[in-house]
């Protein structure tokens, strides 16, 4: 490693290579509070050419590496083990171009999600995927994780908004995937690359779609006496054929945490669940569909419904949801933000099961999630300095995953597998499928040097045997 550092310093200048213990501590964690491991060194390229030179140098030296954006990921995907070099991409943060006529933007991987929407705003456009960390997270990280967000219910996740990628493969060669228009050039390698969690290479140039801002938006807040009633209202809205821009649920623990915090939004603290329904589109659609939605909410037992169309009032209704994770900081020093998906029809039963798991392990579990697509976020408040408590959190998280899988769901809807969920992969994929994933990874990275140890359980990654059935 020591012999490698001068080579890296020659590429970026010594200022952009960090290797002292104190400097590395900053990079020992991402948004996952339960995994901490400093890398061997951190290198911060400032240009696409430097990224290529660094990857080539690491390839030559046989050193594994982890690419990292803002480090806001919640699955431990951007944490490196002590033998690996971390390549942080936050200096590559330019928005290279915005083409309003074609509704495309070209950005560098370190560009911040929210900055892109701000840059597109003067043209009446926006970048649709809006993860909660959008003020900090980078588009390169979004591509790696296939990030979602509340408005993905209507507009789709990151994969739906990336048309073209220039990627640096782990051997330092480059490939241009997709096309400006979005049609695949050959098989859909952009689709395959998005969500590969930094294991196929580094996207150094990203072309995204931009979507027009809706003419009208209407947000409704409804509160319910039971989670089941709120869940049934969700199913009824979806079944009506109306596709809300967002359809979010918060449970009582979460509402109370918000209302006790500086982010208090006036949500009723005696409600078992609160639903936020946002409609957007033409004025007629928003008014017409809004009446249908309010009706469905009332039919399914909403105790009160507050609707708003002005930006200021809508922002107030959203405030509690947007700040929910911040407010939960009041409950305990650490928050394990879980992520799983279940079929919408299973929401009430799974939420019951999650509650029971929390009680059994004597943990505070709050739920704030994307109800419209069944994407749960059970959050467990804890203090990681308490080893026994942390062990119970780990145990409960595993049980929650099992409950979601048993209901026909998946272990992650938008946070990725990373290191946190790696051992749950066999819950949803059989050996042949995990083997196929290993084989795909080796197409991009035969030496397994890019983000090693993530996503694929180690024991699953045996040789892709010749002959499957026989």
């Amino acid at each position, binding site marked *: 490693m020591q012999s490698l550092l001068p080579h890296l310093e020659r590429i970026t200048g010594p200022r952009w290579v960090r290797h002292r213990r104190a400097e590395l501590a900053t990079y020992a964690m991402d948004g996952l509070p339960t995994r901490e491991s400093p890398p061997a060194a951190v290198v911060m390229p400032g240009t696409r050419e430097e990224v290529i030179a660094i990857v080539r140098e690491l390839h030559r030296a046989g050193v594994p590496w982890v690419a990292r954006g803002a480090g806001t990921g919640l699955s431990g995907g951007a944490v490196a083990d002590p033998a690996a070099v971390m390549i942080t991409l936050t200096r590559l943060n330019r928005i290279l171009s915005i083409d309003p*006529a*074609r509704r495309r933007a070209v950005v560098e991987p370190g560009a911040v999600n929210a900055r892109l929407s701000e840059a597109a705003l003067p043209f*009446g456009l926006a970048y649709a995927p809006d993860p909660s960390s959008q003020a900090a997270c980078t588009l390169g990280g979004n591509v790696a994780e*296939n990030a979602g967000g509340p408005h993905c219910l209507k507009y*789709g996740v990151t994969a*739906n908004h990336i048309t073209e990628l220039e990627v640096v493969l782990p051997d330092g060669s*480059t*490939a*241009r*995937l997709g*096309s*400006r*228009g*979005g*049609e*695949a*050039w*050959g*098989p859909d*390698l952009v*689709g*395959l690359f998005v969500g*590969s969690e930094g294991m196929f290479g580094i996207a150094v140039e990203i072309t995204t779609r931009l979507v*027009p801002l809706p*003419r009208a938006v209407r947000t409704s807040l409804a509160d319910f006496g039971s989670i089941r009633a709120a869940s049934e209202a969700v*199913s009824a809205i979806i*079944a*009506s*054929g109306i*596709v809300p821009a967002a359809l979010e649920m918060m449970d009582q623990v979460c509402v109370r945490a918000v209302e006790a915090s500086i982010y208090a939004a006036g949500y009723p603290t005696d409600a078992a669940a609160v639903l936020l329904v946002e409609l957007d*589109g*033409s*004025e*007629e*659609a928003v*008014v*017409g569909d809004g009446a249908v939605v309010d009706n469905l909410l009332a039919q399914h037992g909403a105790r009160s419904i507050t609707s708003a169309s002005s930006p200021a009032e809508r922002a107030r209704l959203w405030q509690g949801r947007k700040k929910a994770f911040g407010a939960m900081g009041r409950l305990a020093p650490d928050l394990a933000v879980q992520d799983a*998906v279940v*079929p919408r029809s299973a929401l009430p039963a799974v939420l019951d099961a999650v509650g029971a798991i929390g009680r059994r392990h004597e943990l505070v579990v709050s739920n704030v999630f*994307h109800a419209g*697509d*069944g994407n749960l976020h059970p959050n467990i408040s804890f203090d990681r300095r308490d080893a026994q408590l942390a062990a119970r959190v780990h145990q409960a998280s595993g049980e929650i995953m099992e409950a979601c899988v048993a209901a*026909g*769901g998946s*272990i992650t*809807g938008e946070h990725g*597998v990373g290191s946190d969920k790696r051992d749950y*992969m066999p819950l*949803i994929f059989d050996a*042949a*499928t995990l083997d*196929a*994933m290993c084989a795909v990874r*080796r*197409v991009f990275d035969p030496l397994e040097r890019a983000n090693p140890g993530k*996503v694929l359980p180690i024991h699953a990654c045996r040789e892709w045997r*010749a*002959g*499957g*059935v026989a």
Partner: protein
Amino acid sequence: MSDAVLTRLRALLGSAGVEREADGLPRATPDSSESFAQVCHVASEEGWRIRLEGQGTWLPADAPAELALSTRALDQVVSVSPADLVATVQAGAPLDEVRRRLADQGMWLALDPPGRPDRSIGSILATATAGPLRYGFGSVRDHVLGCAVVTGDGRIVRAGGRVVKNVAGYDVTKLHVGGFGGFGVITEVHLRLRALPRADVTFTALGPRDRLAAAARAIGAASLSPSALEMFSPALAAEAEWMLAARLTGTDSAVVGEARRLSATGDVTWQQLRADRSAAFWGLTARAALAGPITLRLGVLPDGLEETIDLVGHDLDEGLVSAGGMGGLRWTGTTSVERLRSLRRAMAAREIPMTIERAPWEVRREIGHFGAYREGVGQLVSKLREAFDPKGALQVALEGSG
């Protein structure tokens, strides 16, 4: 040779699952992913080449091979969940049959691919042939939550899942949707559904091509949100002029508002199709893709449509062309390998990918479904093929020979 193959397949599948095609080729029609995998495994071991077939309505069944493998007996709608808007369907199920089953329960698969209405779901996925509805509902991949795939050497890979949002593991589904079977055969698929729209109306306008193209762009710029917006050449529309067709779906109030704004946008005169004619209209335009032996698509952006149509007209003929309001162009007709090659080169120079969606084997073999790859792509594609079909059993011309 064919007798030995036939005997071996009958031992695997029983005599009901194996027959002889008109040209004497043994054809296996397994009725499960597992028996499908057994056939691929044996073929791969023996070095037999496999010709893949669905309902036989899209790609011609003409690839040279030792056996044909058909999804025809995999034609079941396995499950439908109205509350979750998800259906699990076997790959050989005909689209019209799936549509009927879904409509009975108030659901809709928002795909309107070119070709016959009884095309198999598997062929739509494998060729990623989306129709006009991609304007509002995205391309084929956006409707696929997961799938089971049998690899060339007989392994069953189950990618994705049955939930609408899922980032567990690599998204291997994306490789198979639009992979033309080159990375394995899709045998079962989990589809994302929508509620059957309450209102569904179609408007058409006739006029000179450039005026209609400008109108299509104006509709996009005005943030109107039709479900389909498609331009048809005169020959395809069977009219004297070009045609622009807009399909509005959704709730009554939304459709009424969109229709009003549509009529105020662009320098064209819209006519609303009678409700009973609308389905027939979209069915006929979809079928036009079968009017010639070759169908191709070009990934062009909306602002490049006119120039691209001119180029296609110059290199091939204007013939049967449809073009989406958000870009994407489909051409059907008769032409030579040389002309296709030259068009692909011209398109590549403009950064427009060209995919051969349908053609006789002698054309596919020469120029491939894909080609003129960009930097670094060719090597990735061949390594992916090697991973999923190590012995090259699947007789799929992803890339041409010349």
